[in-house]
């Protein structure tokens, strides 16, 4: 029964927190542009309006299945992500499983966009996958380094280890370089400004979202909420000591997303190969240095 509650509640909490994160993102951007920014329930309005669209255009069965796969993938990822109070299935599948489950929605979106038969979408997906290859290398190094220090890939265990000695045993304290390298990679994962090459409105008309309208677009907005939440929580779980209690946990997740979002709005957009070169130079370098330190211990 406890598991049933976890399965239902964890995605719901993820969605709601995600909405707040999206709202925070748009508010921060507005404030930077000296604007008032959207009202409080704006993300909800957007999603409801998109789902309430009277005409829904689809480009084939795969287009629909991709949305289903998208939502299913992220809901599964939430269930394997331990949050204070809810353990979910984190025991059954560990960190490596989570990394791979987070790739399932990406593949689902890619297949859906491909079936829209629009080259803007295909170019967007090709850039998105290249960006994924770029930021996943430093991320992998960071994750390997983390699991090396903690000795286990069981997320619940990792959180417990970090909380034993309070702030001192947090991931960022024990392995600062890995945390920094990891954060730069996580910033890439958010897919915002400096690495926003695959949404690139001016060049490829929002890339993958070019043929998404109505409830397809609504599902993508939901994915954005889940994405911000999942990546934020993953980083917090690995390097910021996971959640002892809800308020502190939410503050940490908000902090992770806030710094990234704040940085985002002052940058232009990197070209695809610049993204790859940058990601494989700085974050990977820092993370490898951290890994070397970890291995030395």
């Amino acid at each position, binding site marked *: 029964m406890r598991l049933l509650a976890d*399965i239902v509640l964890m995605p719901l909490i993820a969605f709601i927190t995600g909405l707040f994160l999206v709202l925070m993102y748009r508010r921060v951007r507005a404030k930077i542009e000296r604007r008032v920014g959207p009202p409080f329930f704006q993300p909800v309005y957007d999603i409801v309006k998109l789902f*309430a*669209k009277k005409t*829904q*255009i*689809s480009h084939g*069965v795969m287009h*629909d299945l991709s949305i*289903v*796969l*998208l*939502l*299913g*993938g992220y*809901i*599964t990822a939430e*269930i394997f992500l331990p949050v204070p109070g809810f353990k979910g*299935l984190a*025991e059954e*599948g*560990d960190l*490596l*499983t989570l990394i*791979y489950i987070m*790739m*399932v929605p990406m*593949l689902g979106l*890619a*297949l859906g966009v*491909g*079936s829209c*038969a*629009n*080259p803007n979408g*295909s170019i967007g997906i*090709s850039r998105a*996958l*290249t960006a*994924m*290859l770029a930021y*996943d*290398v430093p991320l*992998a190094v960071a994750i*390997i*380094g983390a*699991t*090396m220090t903690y*000795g*286990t*890939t*069981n997320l619940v265990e990792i959180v417990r280890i970090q909380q034993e000695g309070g702030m001192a045993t947090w991931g960022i304290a024990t392995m600062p370089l890995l945390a920094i390298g990891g954060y730069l990679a996580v910033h890439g994962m958010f897919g915002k400004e400096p690495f926003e090459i695959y949404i690139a409105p001016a060049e490829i008309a929002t890339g993958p979202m070019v*043929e998404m309208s*109505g*409830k397809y677009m*609504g599902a993508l907005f939901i994915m954005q909420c889940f994405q911000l939440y999942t990546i934020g929580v993953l980083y917090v779980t690995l390097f910021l000591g996971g959640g002892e209690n809800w308020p502190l946990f939410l503050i940490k997740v908000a902090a992770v997303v806030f710094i990234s979002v704040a940085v985002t709005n002052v940058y232009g957009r990197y070209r*695809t*190969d610049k993204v*790859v070169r940058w990601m494989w130079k700085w974050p990977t370098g820092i993370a490898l240095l951290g890994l070397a330190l*970890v*291995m030395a211990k």
Partner: protein
Amino acid sequence: MSELDFLFAFAAVLIAGVMCCGRDGRAGWAAMAVYGAMLVAVMAAAGKVAGGSIPSALGFSVLGHKIGWRMDGLGWFFSMLTAGAAFFASWYAAGEWGRAQPGMKTQHLLLALNVAAMLLLVNAGDLLSLFIGWELVSWAAFAMMAQKGGPAQPAAMRYMIYALAGAMAVLAGIMIVHAVTGSFAYKDFAAAFGAMSSGMKWLLAGLFAAGFGVKMALMPFHLWQAAAYSETPGASSAFLNAVSARMGLFALILVLVKVMGLSALAGLHVPLIGLSAKGLLMWIAAFTMVIPTFIALMQTDARMLLTWHGIGQGGYMLLGVLVGTGLGTAGGLLHVFNYATYQMALFLAVTAVIHRTGTSDLDRLGGLITRMPWTYVTLLMGIIGLAGLPPMNGFVSKWMIYRSLLDSGSAFLLIFAFVGTLGTILSVYKLIHNIFLGRLRPQHEGVREAPWSMVAPMLALGGIGFVTGWFPGLALNLTDIAQAAMGAPELPHGLGGVATARGSLNMIWVVSILLVAIGFGAIVFYFLGNRRYEVNQLNNYAGGHFLSPQVPYQFSHEFYPGLARVIGPWYRGSIVRAEQGIGTLLDVSGDLWRGIYHLAWTPLYLLAATVIALGWAIMGGM
């Protein structure tokens, strides 16, 4: 007459059967039935082989050496793979695809020969019979590759040269062992290996690793496999891809891991760098994982892309086995099984596309999802398996390999493995996008779905991949038998997966939750919004431009331009140039020697030389 003899008898009957009445239509189905019977026979022998091994009547003694065949756990596992792969290949070839092929009789015959040769190899009793089986497998594969003629022949010729060089290295290794131990039995070799000098150990390990590595297309010898396997006709190339390249892995496991023992290999140290022999081999496997995968990324032909991935996946299996822990070996062997299922499904799907559209060039296909949905489903299941994503079985074995690498603390190898996986994800998406997604080209307008006789085996393979992905315990029971025979530590596992202290995986939960979540996603999608309306592919956003079928509006050529700009300069093909260097060296020295035979005045030079020699001898000697 033990089970092994039944197996050999089936193979012989099959060859004879195809020889005599291979022509008429039903031959394909009959062959399929026999392969099925073989598979059942092997499965039945599982119990008996779990403990010891099944002797076979086949055996003779020549020049004072007794040669015999028997089946142990490892042999059983690979025989099961061979029979399974042959069963699906013949099922595919028996249907309409086979009737449309010229010279189908020879293909059936060659498939039967290949299966017989592989059975002889994997159930070898001693080193000599191992070599006999090895040669037969190499030549049967050569015949199968060269059978189609045209561009296949230079590829087959290149393969034959590599394979024979490898075989000669193996022969030299075997004879050295015989010279040292006096017999060809594995146990004598194992016993004597410990006492050998490190120089001899290096020599033997080097010879066997190089010899078997050629067939497995390990890094320096990997150039031949892609062209050779993709030029073979459809069903047999699926068979070759799924199983034939793994014969090299079988022999490597048998000799390096089971006979020599990983601990002995770990003992040998490379003088300069701090690597041990095992470490060196693991790094070769790591490079074999990454570099062929990124070569595959740049291919424009579907079959070449898949064969390059075959080489890459070989690296994973070897890495898993070399880790040596129970988890790693099980991961490696399970990856052999998983790879066979999804690689065969992928190849059969690509062959179905070739059967219908006539081309496998990724730049001239697109949008076939509306015309060939079931082939699309198979290819999708295949690429999810190849990329190693959760619902399919590819993920389980990769997870186990990663887990074992983490346990053994080799972080940099794990980074290579991870980069290899990412490269795979990128290139498999390019494969499925360029063939099935995107815009349907006008000339493929009339394409129909592949016939059921071709779709059924594909879906069956995909189904196996999904079921063993959901309940990996089924496949792990098979690998346990092989692990026991290999002497690797036992791996405790349930039906869902592996539960270790430092991180466990239970695929039953992972996949079930995924399906439930997808169900929930479907509910959200289908019930919340209005009913969807399907539009034709020209009703698309093109910046206000009116789309027409004549103007191609598809992005598939050079699919990752950004990445190509970064890693493009790294493809210098240094190994290809090395190979060409050897080729020119051979030609130049050949011309030199041939020149000598066209000299006119040899007798004169000879006379002069002898007179001088004589003068020296007489002056000095007297």
